[in-house]
């Protein structure tokens, strides 16, 4: 061995050698019996300096461990796979945890919304639903009427059949909106209902507007539903 290599070995023994140099030297250390023997003697020197009494210094344990492991299979990439899988699993853990937490939160919110509110709100909720349904019922009826041939009291502008299917919701849709209005946010509920009841007298604080034509549509407001 040359002096530079010996110096590197000494520094490596002290964990003071840069990692890049360690890689190369570790290979030589594991294969060269002379370097390994020197490495073992460095350990003996340290044990004597630390006055480790009662310990066999000639390396009994190392010989026995080496003999015991001679029948063991060498570790391989296959043996490392469980650690890799566990690492991958650990990587997914936060995402899975966040997804689970979000799911639980969503279910909790839906459940809470379906439950009674404190301070008598339980009695208020059905009443609110009934009132909303009552308010929306004329609008739904108006929509049905809009689909049907218009009576004389209504001014139904001519619209194309394609536009009719797009703008006027089906009856089932109106019923759906009304029935679920109790579960929707107040703002969106207001928007939906106001869209349905835009010209219903007494249900809107603003007068019905007829100046919102879309292309090809002129005066689509329902002026006088019954």
């Amino acid at each position: 061995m040359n002096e530079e290599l010996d110096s590197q070995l000494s520094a490596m023994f002290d964990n003071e050698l840069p990692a890049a140099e360690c890689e190369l030297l570790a290979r030589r250390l594991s294969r060269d019996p002379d370097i390994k023997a020197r490495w073992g003697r460095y350990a003996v020197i340290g044990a004597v300096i630390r006055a480790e009494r009662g310990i066999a210094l000639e390396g009994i344990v190392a010989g026995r461990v080496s003999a015991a492991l001679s029948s063991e299979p060498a570790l391989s990439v296959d043996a490392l796979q469980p650690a890799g899988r566990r690492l991958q699993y650990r990587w997914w853990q936060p995402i899975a945890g966040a997804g689970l937490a979000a799911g639980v939160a969503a279910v909790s919110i839906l459940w809470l919304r379906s439950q009674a509110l404190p301070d008598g709100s339980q009695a208020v909720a059905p009443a609110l639903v009934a009132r909303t349904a009552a308010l929306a019922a004329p609008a739904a009826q108006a929509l049905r009427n809009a689909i049907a041939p218009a009576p004389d009291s209504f001014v139904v502008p001519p619209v194309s059949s394609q536009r009719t299917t797009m703008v006027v919701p089906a009856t089932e849709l109106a019923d759906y909106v009304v029935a679920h209005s109790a579960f929707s946010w107040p703002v969106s509920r207001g928007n939906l209902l106001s869209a349905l009841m835009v010209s219903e007298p007494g249900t809107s604080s603003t007068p019905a507007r007829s100046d919102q034509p879309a292309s090809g549509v002129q005066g689509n407001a329902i002026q006088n539903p019954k």
Partner: protein
Amino acid sequence: MSADASDLSLVRRVQRGDKGAFDALVLKYQHKLVKLVMRYVRNPAEAEDIAQEAFIKAYRALPQFRGDSAFYTWLYRIAINTAKNAVVSRDRSPVEYDLDRSNTDESYDMQGRMKDSETPEGLVLTDEIRSTVNAAIDSLPEDLRTAIVLRELEGLSYEEIAAAMACPVGTVRSRIFRAREAIDRRLREVFEGGLGRAEELG
């Protein structure tokens, strides 16, 4: 530079199937581990058995070692657990041989306990190693002796030794290396002589 770079490079080699790299780790830490285990068991032979078991456990568990902690810290925990388990199982083991112990007290101590390290040859060799190393250290120049003692006895890093000795880190590395080489020259003779004697006895 990682403080555990050399151990980690050896560990990675073991994980890739290089058993020889594990031999290097055992050679490096066997004395420390036996001394550690002797906090739990007084008998040196039993401590060696436990240390051996700890090393084998560590080898088998190495695929799970990711290097989050230093290798010796990880090995230390395995050794402590192995020693504690050994003490518990020993305390639970039946003691039927105690009835005969009073009659064969001396033979009991020797029975099944005599390991290589406790044979007369082993004890002589250990004493010879110790006296040789101590003599070699005494004959070292002051700066070399101070450097190697600060490293091995106090466990200081090269940087800390450099600060203590008011010299560059490179000089510390050189001094420690030269100290080891000087001691190793004498020690190698003892090992070779000891092995020769062992072969003669065998």
